[in-house]
């Protein structure tokens, strides 16, 4: 079946603009995660959803970042008033449940470049 998909694959924007990144998880997966991968650094947790609610938003770096999920499916990560330090690859993952036995399946990522 289809894996996790993300769009766009690449996004170049100007500083100060808003961007929306989309994630389509594997059908039936109740948990959805967003991570950020900056050049030369590890993956950084941003937020996760269980169903449509977000029990853990602790990783969002500032109030310019927000995310929502609807229909226990698609999720959108929005970055307002982008800054150059927001440049990174944004990765989405989904899993059947959040418990330890369930593997997180990752999408190919969206490469965001803020000029």
């Amino acid at each position, binding site marked *: 079946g289809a894996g996790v998909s993300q769009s766009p694959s690449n996004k170049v924007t100007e500083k100060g603009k808003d961007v929306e990144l989309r994630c389509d998880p594997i059908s039936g997966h109740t948990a959805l*995660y967003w991570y950020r991968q900056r050049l*030369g650094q*590890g993956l950084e*947790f941003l937020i*996760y959803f269980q169903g449509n609610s977000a029990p*853990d938003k602790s990783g969002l770096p500032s109030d310019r970042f927000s995310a929502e999920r609807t229909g226990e499916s698609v999720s959108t990560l929005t970055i307002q008033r982008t800054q150059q330090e927001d440049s990174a690859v944004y990765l989405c*993952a989904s899993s059947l449940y*959040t418990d330890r036995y369930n593997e997180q399946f990752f999408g190919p990522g969206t490469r965001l470049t803020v000029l």
Partner: protein
Amino acid sequence: AQSVTQLDSQVPVFEEAPVELRCNYSSSVSVYLFWYVQYPNQGLQLLLKYLSGSTLVESINGFEAEFNKSQTSFHLRKPSVHISDTAEYFCAVKNTDKLIFGTGTRLQVFP
């Protein structure tokens, strides 16, 4: 908070040589450990995981990792690498519902 350390940012090795990619984690009561691989221009894929039971876990392509509680390590090894193993490898620990990742090790296999 749990954390993961991958001391080697790059590991160059010749084809058919053995390799070890190091991973250390901060101690916790329950530890669930993972290795993910990211091939060029692809997303992350799970390579292997330790949840409980046998401390030695294996992947289908010849990699293995050993959970060592006393040394808080989960090093990844392969006795003979192939060109196609060239990739970035990430060690991760599960913290409640999310994964905490190391900074990654780029394995470069030369012919």
